[in-house]
């Protein structure tokens, strides 16, 4: 019987003939922690009485969630990370370097066929370049950096076949929001998602990351795609590691298969307070907006910034609204400066903040006030997510956020593209 991508990678890495629902102990190619999870992992590392990591080159820690530090307690945790990284000689990314999920693939740490864990739920992002990457907690992170191994339950796979072409003004963010709305927040729990079809092949690698990033919002363990020419070109540009792409067998067994034609999809909006509370923008009704956010590990890449800048160029943000832009990495910020995008944002009235998580998780950089509506390109709109449980968060594409802050209400970006 054939195998899915997840079964193949976990078979290779565990040295066993792994099938869905088996439990295996597998070798890890890369291990990542961020500043919300690493300090606890360092504590667990010490409690486990370990002295050395398994391989410094295959470990990275990133300060991105509260960067630069807004509080003295956070500063102390950051200090502990810096000390640990220096002692253990691991890869280390400090404030201003960017969001972990941009840095890990951009800096060439991950290639197709890899098995990766990260102590952050959106580690599933690298599935877009054919790596089985998944989020874990701090104790798993500690075990991973000590032993280079972790136990896994081999997931069943939920396959999404996406046919047709996305229309003008409709993006990969709209596509993944639509799918999450369809299958709900726990529609793929414990499963691997595999995304394939013409609509996926059409997308750039940047746009594919957005889809895999949000696999967790349907409960999935990972969001896998096959490696095509675009993937291989992208990976070779960023990494010198050798790799062998992994595809699913034609007779692989899937727990579920769903097929959609996306040609007539309109921009999608996730309404407060769950990511699966999705509607097409024409069904939304009037929603005034006080704050927009463009950035995060979901939509802070070059392509996203270009899309937003196209709409913002020569326009001004509505006086009732404000806009925060956080490029996903230092490299992206530099590229965006060279292309003039940062100037476009600032001219339009945006506040451009340090590359990193920005205001996504409510630690700094733009906590909304009571009763305010926020539209964000992030991946979560949970109550309290941005640091105020009396604010309302809507999710959409970079184009939708840009159009919405110009009009001061949630707006179909296609109105401003023509």
């Amino acid at each position, binding site marked *: 019987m054939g195998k899915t991508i997840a079964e193949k990678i976990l078979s290779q890495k565990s040295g066993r003939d792994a099938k869905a629902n088996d*439990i295996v*102990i597998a070798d890890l190619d890369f291990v990542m922690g961020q*500043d*919300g*999870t690493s*300090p*606890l992992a360092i*504590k*667990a590392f010490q*409690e*486990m*009485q*370990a002295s050395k990591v398994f391989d410094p080159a295959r470990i990275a820690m990133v300060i991105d*969630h*509260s960067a630069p530090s807004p*509080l003295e*307690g*956070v500063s102390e*945790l950051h200090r502990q990370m810096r000390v640990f990284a220096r002692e253990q000689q691991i890869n280390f990314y400090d404030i201003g370097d960017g969001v972990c999920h941009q840095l890990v693939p951009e800096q060439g740490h991950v290639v197709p066929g890899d098995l990766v864990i990260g*102590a*952050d*739920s959106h*580690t599933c992002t690298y599935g877009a370049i054919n790596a089985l990457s998944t*989020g*874990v*907690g*701090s*104790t*798993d992170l*500690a*075990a991973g950096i*000590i*032993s280079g*191994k*972790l*136990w896994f*339950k081999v997931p069943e796979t939920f396959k999404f076949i996406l046919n047709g072409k996305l229309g003008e003004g409709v993006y990969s963010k709209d596509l993944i929001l639509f799918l999450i709305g369809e299958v709900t*927040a*726990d529609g793929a*729990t*414990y499963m691997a998602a595999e995304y394939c079809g013409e609509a996926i092949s059409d997308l750039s690698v940047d746009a594919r990351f957005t889809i895999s990033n949000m696999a967790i919002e349907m*409960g999935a*363990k990972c969001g896998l795609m096959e490696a095509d020419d675009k993937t291989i070109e992208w990976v070779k540009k960023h990494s010198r590691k050798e790799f062998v792409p992994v595809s699913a067998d034609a007779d692989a067994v899937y727990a579920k298969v769903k097929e959609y034609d996306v040609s007539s999809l309109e921009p999608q909006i996730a309404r407060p307070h*769950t990511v699966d509370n999705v509607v097409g923008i024409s069904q939304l009704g009037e929603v005034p907006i006080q704050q927009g956010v463009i950035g995060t590990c979901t939509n802070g890449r070059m392509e996203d910034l270009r899309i937003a800048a196209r709409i913002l160029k020569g326009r001004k943000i509505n006086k009732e609204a404000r806009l925060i832009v956080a490029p996903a990495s230092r490299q992206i910020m530099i590229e965006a400066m060279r292309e003039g995008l940062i100037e476009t944002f600032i001219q339009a009235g945006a506040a451009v903040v340090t590359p990193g998580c920005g205001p996504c*998780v*409510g*630690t700094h950089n733009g906590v909304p006030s009571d009763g305010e509506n926020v539209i964000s390109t992030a991946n*979560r709109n*949970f*109550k*309290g*997510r941005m*640091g105020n*449980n009396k604010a309302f968060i809507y999710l959409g594409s970079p184009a939708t956020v840009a159009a919405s802050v110009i009009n001061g209400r949630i707006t179909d970006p296609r109105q401003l593209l023509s």
Partner: protein
Amino acid sequence: MKLAGKCHKFGNDVNTDYIISGRHKFKTLDMKELAKHVMEDLDPEFYNKVSTGDFIVAGTNFGCGSSREQAPLAIINADIGAVIAKSFARIFYRNCINTGLPLIECDTDQINPGDELEIDLDQGTLLNKTTGAVIAITPLPPVMLKILSEGGLVEHFKKYGTFHFD
């Protein structure tokens, strides 16, 4: 392993931001301090209401959202005996096993707020003492049971230095 306590009931999709909000978790590694804020966005009085050994009881997809291990640790440090739900989100599930917080997967429709419950993990049953109902529990796979019974992954690594299963 036997557990007994009172039910505190919540709905579906209780995410990790509700269990412990991001605005608290980044500030400190002091779990006793974090525990005071457990579930506060859903019930500001929660921490003051629970007695040692009480249970959080919920619907489907408990613990969805972020990978923050502060979520199970805050629950443990609020002296909750176990979390009982119809289903759990994957990372939260792993984190519970690794930190030694018992999780019970079963039908929770027959459990009401305030019910007194008794759980026998070895027998795989949950007795609702208030209503008399006996509810079957989905058993944990052996690898997870071993880690949980050793008190979590830290204890496992202390003992073996790496993963060790026969």
